[in-house]
């Protein structure tokens, strides 16, 4: 009896494994299709989407070379702007929201609580609600360049970050900071050399959420930046279509491949943190 049930359990596990492996293959197919078509001559992308790029279809690296200047804008420039905006925004958000969150959690005045509840409230506000007025305000105050747009990200993204940091600071015993104060640390020194190191897990979680958000964001930069001058990768990909009316699908796929390779490498390198960070951000409700 028992052996039989063990055997049947083993069999059902094998079936499950096979099914999951099959789903896995289906899951990577779209990415695989991008790879195939980035080496294919444009006219064949639509007619032979799922064929190997062989013989007359083979384009070599032409699509990549062409893609570099495709859409009247150098691709490398949009990569640099994307990196600049993502790094600066994430840095600003991590630094300033962790400082504010610590202050909110420890001082806990009426003003602090007001800001905190406003932050929580901002998490349920969809971007469409503020996009028109936000882009006008950002324009007027000159936050419309890649060097200044991080301030806008700090403002609109503060909600989730403050919420997560405050939650974590409240779980740290205040006695540690009091001990530091007794040892003669001022608030600034206490924060930077005592509190900040303890915040590391949340810094990583929030950092990953912000990186993923800013890197992939399309609507905010397209409305705030002058897109003839500054484009991020998503803007660049979106405007490949509008540039001449016709589309070079081969070159588009080459650029899409180039833009997802760093994302996948980043994911494989810090997978553990990414999954943890995303799970932490999901429970915000």
């Amino acid at each position: 009896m028992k052996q039989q049930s063990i055997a049947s359990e083993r069999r059902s596990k094998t079936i499950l494994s096979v099914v999951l492996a099959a789903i896995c293959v289906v899951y990577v197919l779209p990415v695989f299709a991008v790879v195939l078509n980035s080496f294919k001559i444009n006219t064949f992308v639509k007619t032979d989407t799922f064929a190997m790029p062989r013989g007359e279809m083979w384009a070599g690296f032409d699509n990549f070379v062409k893609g570099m200047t495709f859409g009247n804008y150098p691709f490398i420039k949009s990569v640099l702007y994307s990196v600049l905006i993502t790094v600066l925004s994430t840095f600003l958000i991590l630094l300033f929201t962790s400082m504010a969150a610590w202050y909110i959690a420890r001082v806990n005045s009426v003003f602090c609580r007001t800001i905190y509840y406003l932050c929580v409230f901002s998490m349920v506000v969809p971007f469409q609600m503020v996009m028109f007025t936000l882009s006008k305000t950002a324009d007027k105050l000159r936050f419309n360049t890649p060097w200044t747009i991080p301030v806008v990200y700090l403002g609109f993204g503060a909600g989730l970050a403050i919420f997560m940091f405050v939650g974590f600071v409240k779980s740290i015993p205040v006695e540690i900071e009091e001990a530091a104060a007794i040892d003669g640390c001022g608030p600034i020194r206490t924060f930077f050399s005592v509190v900040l190191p303890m915040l590391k897990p949340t810094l990583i979680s929030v950092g990953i959420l912000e990186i993923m958000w800013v890197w992939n964001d399309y609507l905010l930069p397209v409305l705030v930046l002058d897109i003839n001058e500054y484009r991020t990768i998503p803007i660049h990909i979106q405007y490949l279509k509008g540039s001449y009316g016709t589309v070079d699908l081969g070159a588009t796929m080459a650029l899409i491949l180039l833009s997802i390779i760093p994302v996948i490498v980043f994911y494989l390198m810090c997978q553990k943190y990414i999954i943890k960070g995303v799970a932490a951000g999901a429970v915000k409700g």
Partner: protein
Amino acid sequence: MSKKISGGNSTRRQTRKWSWLFMGPVVAAFAIGFVWPFIQGIYLSFCKFRLIRDAQFIGFGNYLTALQDQTFRSAFWYTAGFAIVSLVLINVLAFAVAYALTQGIRGSNLYRTVFFMPNLIGGIVLGYIWSMIFDGILHRYGTSIVENQTWGFWGLVILVCWQQIGYMMIIYIAGLQAVPEELHEAAKIDGASKWQTLFKVTIPNVMPSITICTFLSLTNGFKLFDQNLALTGGMPIVIQPDGSSVKTTEMLALNIYSTFYNSNAKYPGVAQAKAVLFFILVAGLGLAQLAYTRKREVQQ
């Protein structure tokens, strides 16, 4: 807590002297990036204007226009239908995958890595990847994803399933792993079948995860923008009997965007009114989630 200790009070007073440093940057940026645009947005939804500085208060006129707008109504029903279909599919599939992955199968980690991967790719890029794939298939039948509303709908459903199943799966795995092993063993000893255990023991115990994922996928469905823009952009267009045109795969967020920014967009006030209605809808869903989760927590 720190109130009891006098030392705590004096450090707090010390900290307060530095409020400008700790709070200043965030408060300033938050005012520019959220508070002011939000307040101004509410105000402008009651105004008629081309430029913000010559806005004229007109009361609820914009809201009436918005509610009578065919394109807005059609976008609402399309979005609601999409949100519900994708909600069911995503959650059923994500739960099934999560359940399978917690059965101690070899290679679970690899599968988890693969299923989560599409989450990191942005909506615009995802849209173009899938439009290439769908057009590659539909080309053989002489059509395209932008020529048929039904294809557009299911195409978008497949896209968001591919993107979000991995995300919900992570939340379900965490929920499933938190169910105490003893409960399963007790059910086994009592002679419960596998299905009975699943429906009577496992699912009731992961209810919090199910609530989170349900509302998350519902609000995600309502807020969807990038994928919608990149996959079909609202195409195909259907001309109504009265001569107006409706984009048949346009969702709410995209409809608001085109009301604001299309070349023939004359009434930003109406667009802002739509945005306020959209905000009330999405925030309402969020608050309902909060209330529901709270209630369940009390019960447990």
